[in-house]
């Protein structure tokens, strides 16, 4: 295993220490394993909390700050955080106006956040939950645990965070997040497996001329394996999957996230984005805003995901609102 780590079991704690050193503008609680905006809690402002397994950086810790999350609670690698941690984050950001949890739809995340919400309720904190399930590679049927939460999480957190900043109610913030999720679809392709520090070897073997199609962000194999194809065909495959699952009316305005899974260099992501943008244009989809980079990752996996989120003027305004976090920053 070729990684900058010490003991595999200490990776998350030690990375948090690094985040604390790198971002004195944030409050990192190493005991509770949470990252909190330094001005939290703010009286009357809804607190926005997210979290999930580590290994997806900059998600979520890199999105803590003005205009986005108030706190993040990173679990162990690919393991949802525990209720205590989520509760600590929830209490740290509760300014009396309630707290909104942004939860990616995984069995573990859902259960642990649910338990934390109950504990917080017992302490008198009103918790609303936004469930993110944008990954259209997974059918939403009784045959599955439902669609996974992936790239759209970033857009949900940005938009909900901007709305929370305006003093909106917890119900309104949660509703906005849910609307963004419903308007989003994502699809990912992996060229390599990732290696968790604990296991020390790639999660699956993939021949040199094959790719996994329809992967999530936890190193699991995808829906199917295919021969590796040129970027333009991979782009077509992702665009078709996304538009097929959530058809857009011509002229729809969208935010497009072309996201790297951690091991893919930026030059490839830009190349792929060029193909995606051309295809969306041909399909009559307008890209109002875009983001290209490694934002919702899966450790060192080489791969990329496409997220398309249909937006209205209001969502666009919230997207454009100032944000000042380690990984996303504009207008502030």
């Amino acid at each position, binding site marked *: 295993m070729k990684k900058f780590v010490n003991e595999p079991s200490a990776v998350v704690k030690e990375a948090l220490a690094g985040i604390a050193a790198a971002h004195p503008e944030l409050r990192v609680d190493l005991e509770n394993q949470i990252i909190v905006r330094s001005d939290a809690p703010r009286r009357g402002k809804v607190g926005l909390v997210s979290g999930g397994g580590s290994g997806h950086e900059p998600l979520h810790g890199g999105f803590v700050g003005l205009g986005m999350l108030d706190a993040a609670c990173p679990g162990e690698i690919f393991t949802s955080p*525990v209720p205590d941690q989520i509760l600590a984050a929830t209490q740290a950001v509760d300014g009396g106006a309630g707290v909104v949890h942004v939860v990616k739809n995984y*069995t*573990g995340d859902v*259960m642990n956040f649910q338990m934390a919400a109950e504990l917080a309720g017992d302490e008198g904190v009103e918790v609303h939950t936004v469930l993110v399930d944008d990954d259209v590679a997974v059918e939403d049927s009784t045959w599955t645990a439902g669609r996974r939460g992936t790239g759209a999480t970033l857009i949900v957190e940005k938009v909900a965070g901007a709305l929370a900043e305006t003093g909106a109610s917890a119900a309104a913030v949660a509703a906005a997040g849910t609307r963004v999720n419903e308007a989003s679809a994502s699809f990912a392709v992996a060229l390599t497996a990732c290696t*968790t520090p604990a296991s020390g070897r790639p999660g699956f073997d993939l021949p040199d001329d094959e790719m996994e199609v329809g992967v999530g962000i*936890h190193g*699991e*194999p995808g*829906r199917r394996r295919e021969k590796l194809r040129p970027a333009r065909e991979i782009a077509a495959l992702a665009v078709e999957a996304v538009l097929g699952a959530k058809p857009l009316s011509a002229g729809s305005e969208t935010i497009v996230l072309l996201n790297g899974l951690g091991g893919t260099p930026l030059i490839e992501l830009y190349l792929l984005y060029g193909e995606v943008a051309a295809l969306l244009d041909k399909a009559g989809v307008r890209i109002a805003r875009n983001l290209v980079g490694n934002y919702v990752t899966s450790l060192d996996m080489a791969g990329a995901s496409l997220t398309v989120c249909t937006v209205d003027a209001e969502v666009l305004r919230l997207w454009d609102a100032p944000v000042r976090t380690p990984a996303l920053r504009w207008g502030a």
Partner: protein
Amino acid sequence: MDAALARAWVSAVAASVAAQTELLTQLDAAIGDSDHGVNLNRGFTAVLAVLDGPETPGEVFAVTGRTLVSKVGGASGPLYGSLFRALGKALGTASTVDAPEVAAGLRAGLDAVRKLGGAAPGDKTMVDAYEPAVVAFEKAAADGLAAAARAAADAAAAGMRATVDLRARKGRASYLGERSIGHQDPGATSTWLVFEALASVTA
């Protein structure tokens, strides 16, 4: 079963999980996210540190459950945590409990797991090992703890092996669709370890 035996069971589970961390992790790598072994090992290691306090079997399991909930995370943390909490709660404050009482406690654990996770037998989860184990334990409870535990462990093993041919409908493995077939479920495997540990400390 007294508090000492309850502690011995939980300690044996911890030892077994520690020894099989790699196996559980590799099973999870095939159809999940490679963390099941590490998750449970972290949890049961933490449990070992708090086992000295409780003085009844019920309290041993309640503390075990609470610790798992707050140390494991993922899907297995809440599920195993709830299982042990329900078991502990069902056993109440008695200082010793007999096999039928343990059977009722294990059944309460099953209800808790099914309620929380929503999985039915056949969904390729820990329920596929746990449910037959409980049924076997109940059937053999009249023959005493050792016999019931042995029967439960064997039933868990059979249930675990049967997960290989199943297509997952719950948990991360469900994302793989047909591709989940042919792999043994990691959670069913750890459940078998739990019952093997019980059989070994009661034998």
